[in-house]
């Protein structure tokens, strides 16, 4: 049986990179006695995967992992599993919800279609007007360099699903996944360039992920 856990990664642990964070989770699950299944083979490892790895420095209150459990669980057991995991979790990591995945449901990593972020800028470098003008562009072209070293233009505009300014913070929902993936930092630097911020200026900002989404009946729903 597979379960999907929603969790946070906030505070100092934001500086722990993805691979180290995976090791941290493995140890956490062992301390908590979570019955996560192990893979076969000579060096068995815990069978779980994170839907969309966070970059170092980015915090999140809406990350997900799918885990294979050793046996079937009911809802009550799942709640106690969550409590045990929280007890063993380091500061900044909280497991918020757990749901049992339906038979044949797409894995989180493949299902994720979009992410929403809040970007906190230290200085008020943009206003609502600039943001509106930025979004009114028909195309937002960037040069993308592929693995062979060839560059190709890509239009990011269709992947910027929402972009607002609230309380001085930028809220954005961006396409995420293997087909179309946009990083919040990319959008931010395009916006700053559009706003006329001089290149090379030290811009201080913090990125916080609020939710991951999948497509369901043509709509985005939380993973």
């Amino acid at each position, binding site marked *: 049986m597979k379960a999907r856990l929603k969790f946070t990664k906030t505070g100092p642990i934001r500086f722990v990179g993805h691979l*180290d964070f995976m090791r941290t989770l493995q140890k*956490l699950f062992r*301390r908590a006695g979570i019955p996560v299944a192990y893979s076969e083979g000579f060096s068995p490892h815990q069978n779980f995967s994170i839907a969309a790895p966070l970059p170092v420095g980015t915090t999140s209150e809406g990350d997900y992992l799918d885990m294979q459990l050793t046996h079937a669980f009911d809802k009550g057991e799942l709640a106690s599993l969550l409590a045990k995991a929280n007890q063993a979790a380091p500061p900044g990591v909280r497991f918020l919800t757990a749901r049992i995945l339906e038979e044949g449901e797409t894995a989180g990593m493949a299902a994720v279609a979009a992410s929403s972020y809040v970007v906190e800028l230290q200085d008020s470098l943009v206003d609502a007007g600039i943001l509106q003008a930025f979004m009114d562009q028909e195309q937002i072209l960037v040069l993308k360099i592929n693995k062979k070293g060839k560059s190709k233009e890509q239009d990011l505009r269709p992947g910027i699903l929402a972009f607002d300014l609230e309380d001085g913070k930028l809220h954005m929902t961006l396409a995420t996944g293997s087909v179309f993936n946009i990083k919040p930092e990319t959008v931010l630097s395009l916006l700053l360039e559009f706003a006329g911020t001089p290149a090379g200026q030290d811009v201080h900002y913090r990125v916080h992920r609020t939710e991951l989404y999948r497509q369901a009946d043509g709509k985005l729903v939380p993973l």
Partner: protein
Amino acid sequence: MQELRLSDEILMHLEKPARYIGNEPNMVWKSPEEVDVRLAVCFPDVYEIGMSHLGLSILYNQVNKRTDASCERVFSPWPDLDKVLREKDIPLFALESQQDVRSFDLLGFTVQYEMSYTNILQILDLSKIPLLASERTPEDPVVCAGGPCTYNPEPLADFVDFFYIGEAEVAFDQVLDLYKQNKERGGSREDYLVSLLDVEGIYVPRFYDVAYKEDGTIASFRPNHPKAKSRIQKRLVVDLKGLDFPLDPIVPYIKPVHDRMVLELFRGCSRGCRFCQAGMVYRPVRNKPLEDLAAQADALVRNTGHDEMSLVSLSSSDYPQLQPLAEHLVDSCGQEHVNLSLPSLRIDSMSLSLMEKVQDVRKSSLTFAPEAGSQRMRDVINKGLTEEDILGGASAAFASGWNRVKLYFMLGLPTEHMEDVEAIADLSQKIVDCYHHIPKEQRNGPVSVVVSTSFFVPKPFTPFQWCAQDRKEDFLSKQRLLNGRINKKRIKYNSHDAQTSVLEGVLARGDRRVGALVLAAYRNGAVFDAWTEHFSYGCWAKAFEQTGLDPLFYSARERSREEILPWEFIDIGVTKKFLWEEYERAVNAHTTPNCMVDCVHCGAGVFKGGICIESKA
């Protein structure tokens, strides 16, 4: 959760920001207001090294158990952060509270290797604590140090307010109690150091004067305070039964060099290898009871979530109950998907059958440490290993499916001749031949033999403490000879840096004057000397010139029986008489039985514990 001391902008530009954020699982955090004594313990190297050290974890556990004291960690900032701290004038901070090191009551260093001495100065410097003990003010922490290198404390005497000689469990609590009492009394820094003179095992350098003869050797070493003892006896836990052990150690986020739980089997070593300082200073051997270890192992698995457990000791095969312990661990660890690692085993049929049970033979390599190539040389160092043992072990290992072997040797051992060096190549070749003697169809691919040599560094409190160390040129010619003789088709050869080994020799047997050398080297830019990529001999060469000290006086000079050695005011139990007799036996290639076979009255019996009082089987 504590606010981090470094801004996101700084952290994001560091190679591994997680070295500086603390907050790991099992970290102990206490508000500075709730305790009377605050200790910062420092391993003067980078986080991943320091977090692999058991001693630090023991002290952290011991101090944090007290409700009136707290213990926090400090490590050397890697050069990327070192640069930022200096440029932006940010004082160094401890990981737990993220507060300035300088705000602590005590700063304790664990000194594990000589090449970390300049990092001690780096830590003090970045913390804005005066480097010289004599220049510290009431606002500075009292700086103390312990660990194997402090059995010769003299090269660090200028920088350290007091040394704790021996195992922390015995009297470190007393050290904290005295601090607290002195603080309550409103006593001065000096008052505290004087009060420490009542504690056995504490050495306060400022209460001793050294005078030198014209030839540079020591004329006298005398206390200058009525309470200062003329001999400092090391502290040692006589009976390890029921001894507190850290069962919920911190679990680092980033991978430390040893990413695993450790179970300490025993302290000391009965083998009596004559080059080995640990084998002498940690005498006598004291075993931990099997029941304690089994319970500790279970708790460690539950509390850390690590997937590997390592047994630590100086020679694991000598643990009397290794077999039942390993069986228990294989059983309980197997259920929990925990791998067992067994370093420091002598390779024989028993250990091989044990290793087959716990390791994947096809993936692991076996390590042999014959230390010397010829039998004569192995007898000189009292290794207690014959060529038959070595080749028998290798053959048995190859027959069990291993095909990768690592061999460790030393070059420059006392009385070494060129034929002893050549014997290293010959012995290595014989091991390769052992592999080819097993039938082709039983072989597991081609054999891989890696030979590594280090250069011998005479250490205090060993029978070789009087020896002249080889000069750099001798080391290099021996290295060249060996390199030319090794059959490179089957054997890979690695060697240490000769220059580093000579410097290590100077620092290991240095006297108080060597402190000025360390300081000058640090001022010249030396730091992270243990890291090949950071070691710069230029900084040290210049320091020798600036201080007028001659490296060869410390490294390449043979000492006489009569000479006052800089460290001999420390009493490790093992007597100078015994060490000298061992030295004489060594040069004649006479071996000495190990403690399990016969007592040779080394002096460690004075502690009335461990193997010294147990009946011999």
